[in-house]
């Protein structure tokens, strides 16, 4: 079993190296998008799927991560030049690190914020939790828009050094995947699932459900922050308007489609959603033969995407993988 895992890991790494150097930038960028949204969705699935806390805040954590990394890797001169609305705050000018510490910092800041948020957030349950977290995602974005001294407001940041590439995004999604599985297959992961299945019963087993939820929330936030940092460096530009709840919805679609609570399913979901929207572009170009090819219905792609989404949900009610992992299926196969 261990050998198989190591083999899979090395194949994945070899593929990343090959892809980065040999595939065309378009294919690489699709892989990058899949990897980044995969990272975000994997971590989102921990709190939403594994711990069963239906929360809607990842756009906020992604935003935080993106801004922290961007501000850390942008050189001071560039910041002075860029902050058009107000001069940047001294701390913004002073902060500067290389890429890896910046990513880690993104994760840490997001995780610390998650810790602070967990106190109010986990006072409520169910759909109330959903709206409170939705609110937090909203508030973070609005702050990004208005704290011009720190974020340059709606103008956003650009010329962010493009340190990220497929090796980074691919490497980090592998790390995220392993960490998530390690969490799930530990007493903490079991406790998270217990909280999801029956919170009162989990308490009756002596589990401090607040802390278990907070662990899941912080871990989730950490990787969402890192993913945000990667996104910032990959796009080289960020602005508050890219972190709306539509981002959260996109992640939600990925995890539910793949199977809530299943990390393997999430990877499939990320491929389907991120690859699928690209693939569906042919719909926008159905008039190719006439030379001018936006077709009669530009935007049809998104109509079809939403129909496919509904159909897929109707047929795979618990998502593609349910809440099982690929490894579970192996296990069952062996028996």
């Amino acid at each position, binding site marked *: 079993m261990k050998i198989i895992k190591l083999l899979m890991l090395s194949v994945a790494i070899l593929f990343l190296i090959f892809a980065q150097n040999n595939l065309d930038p378009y294919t690489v960028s699709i892989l990058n998008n899949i990897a980044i949204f995969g990272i975000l969705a994997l971590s989102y699935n921990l709190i939403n799927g594994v711990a069963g806390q239906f929360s809607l805040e990842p756009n906020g954590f992604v935003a935080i991560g993106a801004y922290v990394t961007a501000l850390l890797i942008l050189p001071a001169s560039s910041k002075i030049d860029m902050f058009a609305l107000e001069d940047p705050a001294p701390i913004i000018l002073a902060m500067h690190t290389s890429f890896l510490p910046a990513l880690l910092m993104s994760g840490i800041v997001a995780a610390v914020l998650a810790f602070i948020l967990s106190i109010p957030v986990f006072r409520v349950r169910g759909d109330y939790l959903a709206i409170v977290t939705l609110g937090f995602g909203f508030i973070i974005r609005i702050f990004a828009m208005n704290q011009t001294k720190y974020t340059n407001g709606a103008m956003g940041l650009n010329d962010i050094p493009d340190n990220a590439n497929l090796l980074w995004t691919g490497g980090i999604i592998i790390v995220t995947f392993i960490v998530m599985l390690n969490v799930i297959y530990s*007493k903490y992961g*079991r*406790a998270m*699932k*217990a909280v*999801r*299945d029956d919170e009162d019963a989990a*308490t009756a*087993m002596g589990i401090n459900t607040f802390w278990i939820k907070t662990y899941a929330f912080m871990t989730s936030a950490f990787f969402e922050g890192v993913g945000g940092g990667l996104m910032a460096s990959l796009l080289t530009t960020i602005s508050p308007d890219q972190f709306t709840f539509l981002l959260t919805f996109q992640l939600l679609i990925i995890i539910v489609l793949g199977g809530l609570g299943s990390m393997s399913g999430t990877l499939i979901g990320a491929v389907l959603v991120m690859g699928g929207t690209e693939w569906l572009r042919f719909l926008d170009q159905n008039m190719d033969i006439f030379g001018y090819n936006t077709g009669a219905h530009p935007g049809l792609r998104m109509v079809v995407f939403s129909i496919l989404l509904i159909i897929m949900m109707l047929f795979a009610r618990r998502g593609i993988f349910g809440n099982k992992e690929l490894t579970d299926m192996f296990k069952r196969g062996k028996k």
Partner: protein
Amino acid sequence: MILELKNITMQFGGITAIDDLNFGVKTGEIYGLIGPNGAGKTTLFNIVTGNYTQTKGTVVFNHEELSGVKPNEIVLRGIARTFQNIRLFKSMSVLENVLIGFHHQANYTYFESILRLPRHFSNEKKIKKEAMILLEKFGIADLADTNSSSLSYGNQRKVEIARALATNPRLLLLDEPAAGMNPSETEDLSNIIKKIKTEFGLTILLIEHDMKFVNQMCDKVLVLDYGEQIFEGKPSDAIVDEKVVAAYLGDFEHA
């Protein structure tokens, strides 16, 4: 006395569910709580386990007062429970359900599990072994990898009790353990309860309707009616007590 309830009163929005209740459970006893539906038995359980905070009175467990102690901490002090309507973790296997009970006996931190440090493996191995031993005692070791929701009712009940035992309790609260079981299952269950009681040195407080079961199992019973204590003593005496009979008749009439 391992458990003592003193002057317990519980009110919900003006309605008195439990009225000035006093009783104690001796170490090693099987103590039964009986009474018609709505008598306040489960409420009493919820007070002992810290899910409800009583309006008045104190709960003393092992010479320590329990007021203000959170439900999950009460478990760590040695009180475990089962639920009236079996509440297993439905998405998990039987083994995983029991492992949840061993949560606090696995000593590794969150980071150790993320990094898969040696302590993670050694502790997981240890609790898995212990969980299997426990399942064997209940005769359901072969079901370890089965999903808990696909078990028969009787086996689900066993898993729930095994899971509670995994927390290493000194006092076990069983809420209608025999409910919904056929006579042979009930028989099986009472044997197991007696076995584990001696083996683990447990004290058991149980709620039950099945009077035959109570008679067979309990050293002592307390009869509740509308939150009031109407009888405490030997089960064989309870069934001939006038008040008790009246209370049960009333219950039947209502039903």
